[in-house]
């Protein structure tokens, strides 16, 4: 009995920490509609700052002031990010800011590495709360009791802030209807900045409070941001009360899940989220988001089949690509092969994000499923490459068919998080199921057939399949199906009223995109000779998003340019600098600020490239 009680209390303490971070994320999203990937970085920053300050100041007063100072300093960092970067992007396409926050994630990672080094840092114990208390004969850390109390206290304070102050009223108003709030003369710029401060402060506080509990390390950011997103989505975006409820539920699921399924606690959490979202598409306490009435929203321009110039350029590019093996050695060809594979991956993600209007945070699942579709065939049936490249898109397509059925029932960030949940579930199956997938040892020996094994031969194979895949996706976008898909995105109301089954089309589109991502994954497996679970991990999904957004989600060639630019930056920076994250992060932030509609999207708006109105 005592054991379960202690486990229960441990769950609550974890819930409090989660709540602090998630509440900040939720508030920021509610007001600014920014999906802030950097929120986890602020949490990590809070922990590092608190560590340093507590070490410097020492003593009881020093410890507690270190935590407070760290939280405030993190809030200031949030403000700096808003002032320097986000402020310039509010008029860009939705989710474009996400790209900037991802750049900030990379920057913070490397800066933290530079300042604090790669070792885990163990902070001081909390003065006065070092020991344990006995609960029904079981030891329980005193500090955890403080955390348990802190969750409800912060919830209460936030409630007072939101319901008893003018600022809080403005925040609630903006969460409900941003345009209306602006129309009433509220200074949005100031409101956004202050919201970023409060939200980041909460993240920093959450991180700072971790130092007596766990060693501060460089992986804190990604772990917490994913969990915080789960909490926010389960609770309902923008709802602080919902975030608290969800944090408690998830804290407890983790505490008890670890007893029942020690290996797959994370999967249990994601399954829980999937169930909640399928039953309640806006989270436990969330409401349907007011549709943005498009202050500053630029309607997407009509698409046009390429004219003479475009065709010549495309053929020219293909000719150049076909000539490259004569000029370059194996290394360059390997990089180019990978670039083409990523371009196909990005094009498949763009297919659902652009024309489909569905943002996926877990598109790597289908890339990985394709790779495993090929790899498993080699491992268990000793299948050849051709069979593997057929099974890759089939395997991924079937996965997308299954998961897509659930995903298209949701929209916006909820849909994105459900895709992430499925990706995590698939990832952990690949990671845990040693007998079939080889776990984190992966599958080795996935080599091309003899005729395709020279670098140049595989390069040509990839060129044919990737260019073919991209052109096919493009053809579908211009087909009646692609038009109907865009119709459903532009106006679901009108689409429904002219007989278009939007959900059904989205489901099909999701499956098509999954199959093409799978083809890319299959090729990738043969190009590397191996398959690992990391192929479907979160960073790869994020890479896909970066490529699509960087190129420009509202354009057709954007994803290809984005993939090329991103992969080139990525490989070159790893080659020439130890601080490739910092450089890449700064590059992304700069690109985002210079090209606020994505690279191709911004270029297309220049007078030189603009199509004349007929």
């Amino acid at each position, binding site marked *: 009995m005592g054991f379960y009680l202690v486990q229960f209390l441990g769950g609550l303490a974890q819930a409090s920490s989660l709540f602090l971070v998630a509440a900040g994320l939720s508030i920021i999203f509610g007001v600014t509609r920014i999906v802030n990937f950097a929120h986890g970085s602020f949490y990590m920053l809070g922990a590092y700052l608190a560590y340093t300050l507590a070490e410097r100041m020492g003593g009881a007063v020093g410890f507690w002031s270190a935590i407070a100072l760290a939280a405030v300093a993190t809030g200031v960092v949030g403000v700096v990010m808003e002032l320097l970067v986000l402020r310039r992007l509010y008029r860009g396409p939705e989710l474009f800011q996400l790209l900037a926050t991802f750049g900030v994630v990379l920057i913070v990672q490397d800066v933290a590495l530079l300042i604090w080094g790669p070792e885990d840092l163990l902070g001081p114990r909390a003065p006065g709360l070092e020991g344990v208390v006995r609960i029904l004969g079981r030891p329980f850390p005193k500090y955890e009791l403080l955390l348990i109390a802190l969750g409800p206290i912060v919830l209460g304070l936030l409630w007072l802030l939101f319901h008893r102050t003018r600022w809080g009223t403005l925040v609630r108003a903006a969460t409900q209807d941003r345009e209306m709030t602006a129309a009433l003369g509220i200074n949005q710029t100031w409101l956004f900045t202050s919201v970023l401060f409060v939200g980041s402060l909460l993240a920093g506080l959450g991180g700072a409070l971790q130092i007596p509990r766990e060693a501060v390390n460089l992986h804190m950011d990604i772990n917490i941001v994913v969990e915080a997103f789960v909490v926010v989505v389960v609770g309902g975006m923008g709802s602080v009360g919902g975030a608290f409820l969800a944090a408690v539920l998830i804290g407890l699921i983790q505490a008890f899940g670890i007893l029942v399924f020690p290996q797959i606690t994370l999967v249990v959490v994601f399954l829980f989220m999937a169930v909640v979202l399928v039953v309640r598409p806006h989270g436990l306490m969330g409401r349907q988001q007011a549709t943005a009435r498009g202050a500053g929203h630029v*309607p*997407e*321009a*009509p*698409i046009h*089949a390429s004219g003479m110039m475009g065709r010549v350029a495309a053929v020219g590019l293909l000719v150049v690509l076909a000539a490259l093996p004569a000029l370059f050695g194996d290394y360059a060809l390997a990089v180019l092969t990978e670039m083409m594979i990523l371009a196909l991956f990005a094009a498949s993600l763009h297919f659902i994000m652009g024309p489909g209007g569905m943002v996926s945070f877990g598109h790597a699942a289908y890339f990985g499923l394709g790779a495993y579709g090929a790899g498993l065939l080699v491992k268990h049936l000793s299948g050849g490459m051709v069979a593997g490249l057929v099974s890759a898109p089939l395997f991924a397509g079937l996965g997308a068919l299954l998961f897509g059925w659930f995903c298209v029932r949701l929209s916006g960030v909820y849909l994105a998080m459900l895709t992430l949940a499925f990706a995590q579930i698939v990832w952990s199956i690949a990671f845990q199921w040693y007998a079939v997938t080889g776990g984190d040892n992966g599958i080795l020996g996935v080599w091309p057939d003899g005729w395709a094994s020279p670098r140049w031969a595989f390069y040509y194979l990839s060129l044919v399949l990737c260019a073919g895949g991209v052109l096919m996706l493009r*053809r*579908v976008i*211009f*087909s*009646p*199906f*692609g*038009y*109907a898909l*865009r*119709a459903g*995105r*532009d*106006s679901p*109301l*009108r*689409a*429904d*009223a*002219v*007989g*278009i*089954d939007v959900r059904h*089309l989205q489901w099909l589109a999701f499956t098509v995109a999954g199959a093409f991502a799978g083809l890319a994954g299959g090729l990738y497996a043969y190009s590397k000779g191996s398959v690992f679970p990391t192929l479907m991990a979160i960073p790869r999904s994020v890479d896909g998003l970066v490529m699509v957004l960087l190129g420009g989600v509202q354009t057709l060639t954007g994803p290809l340019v984005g993939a090329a630019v991103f992969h080139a930056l990525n490989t070159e920076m790893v080659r020439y600098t130890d601080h490739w994250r910092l450089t890449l992060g700064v590059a992304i932030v700069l690109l985002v600020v210079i090209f606020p509609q994505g690279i191709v999207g911004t270029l297309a708006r220049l007078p030189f490239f603009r199509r004349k*109105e*007929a």
Partner: protein
Amino acid sequence: MAVLEVSGLTKSFGGVQAVKGVGFSVEAGELLALVGPNGAGKTTCFNMLNGQIRPDAGDVRLAGVSIAGKSPRRIWRMGVGRTFQITATFGSMTVLENIQMVLLSHHRNIHDLWTRATRRHADAALALLDRVGMASQASRPCGVLAYGDLKRVELAMALAGEPRLLLMDEPTAGMAPAERIDLMALTADLVRERGIAVLFTEHDMDVVFTHADRIIVLNRGELIAEGPPAAVRANPHVQEVYLGSGSMYGHAGGKTP
């Protein structure tokens, strides 16, 4: 047989009876106006016809076939076109593509993944645009049109499905007075030449008295009057309901058709 036959239509929200036992019919080529003060139940009634709300009781028959409780999609396939109070078009497509999109759906082509969409039904789409006076703007993006033009595009979209019945929710809302008359005159011509039945709600009594063949009046969820414009205007019950708002008398005199 009437194109649309509504009988005993009823809907409550919680304790509020929004629509109580409403029944009426519309003939081919007829424009029937549904009017009533705010909160009379017009929108609820309308949304039960187009499939957005399922009625608690009563029946809606389209050419004798019940459509009550069916989805908007199914109802459209059975021959009911719609225009919305706030126009809903496909903003990332050109005007012509908007019409082509509806034609593609009407001809059940949307599962075609291979042919070029813009090459399908282009002539038919252009003919429709010509009929509503929008052919000259066919290649402009729908997202940049003036509101009055959007209304015309929407009318063409509604007609592209070859409807037997057209449901128009506040067709002239948000338009300049001169544009209103033009749009309704165009609508009246179109539906008469094609034998389409029209049911529309409208706040502008000028429009109602000029263009409706018949008027039905709702108040507090119940049908209180029905008949040709002159008779409805003379109805003491209707006068009582509208008294105070003055909208029925302010400037409508002498415009009875």
